[in-house]
């Protein structure tokens, strides 16, 4: 079981703040994105366009970061300070 968290406008897009997902084996962030895309295509699109950062256990993750059972994955839209 992993925990998925959505913040700011992503709560509206995902229509939830948090959900739990059963995973049989460890998966990559990329594989998780594919799973999310099926239920919420708009989320998948934003992830592919790099509009969202993804953290695993409160550390920034890359597409090939491995997610294990018990991990917390968060979808982070751009922060209030922007990137400038």
């Amino acid at each position, binding site marked *: 079981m992993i925990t998925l968290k959505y*913040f*700011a*406008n992503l709560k509206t897009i995902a229509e939830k703040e948090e959900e739990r997902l059963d995973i049989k084996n460890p998966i990559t962030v990329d594989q998780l994105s594919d799973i999310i895309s099926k239920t919420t295509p708009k989320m998948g699109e934003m992830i592919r366009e790099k509009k969202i950062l993804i953290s695993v256990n409160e550390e920034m993750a890359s597409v090939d970061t491995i997610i294990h059972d018990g991990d917390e994955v*968060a979808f*982070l839209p*751009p*922060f*209030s*300070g*922007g990137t400038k």
Partner: protein
Amino acid sequence: MSTTTDSKISIQLEDFSVTDEIEAMKKVSRNIGGITTFLGTGRELSKGQNISQLNFEHYPKMAEKKLAEIREKAIKDFGIIDMSIIHRIGPIEIGENIVLIVATGEHRKETFVACEWAIAELKRTTPIWKRETTSTGEVWVQDTP
């Protein structure tokens, strides 16, 4: 992370007193000659629109962790004596305090550099989001005050 470190970092609903934060930082050393402070406040105008209220949301634990990392790196890299960082969440009215960074040092130069770096780093790395309420509704925004 030590208790000392944690007490210099705060994400909170309540307002804070700049004077009280500075006085707390003064207690760390008798050799402080310069203190640079950055205070971010709620602006009325954003991209030409009048804002009536701001609302901040954060990713608990991760945001605090990022602020602690910024503080530690600032002390290590710039040779300041100490730094404290406070960010408010929840509703913020125009003119109210949002974020405070206090950098203390023996001399002024390093406190300016560390303070300016820390606020830029906070905005770049800390999971905090801002929602603006205007006459046309509410929107999650990015900007760089």
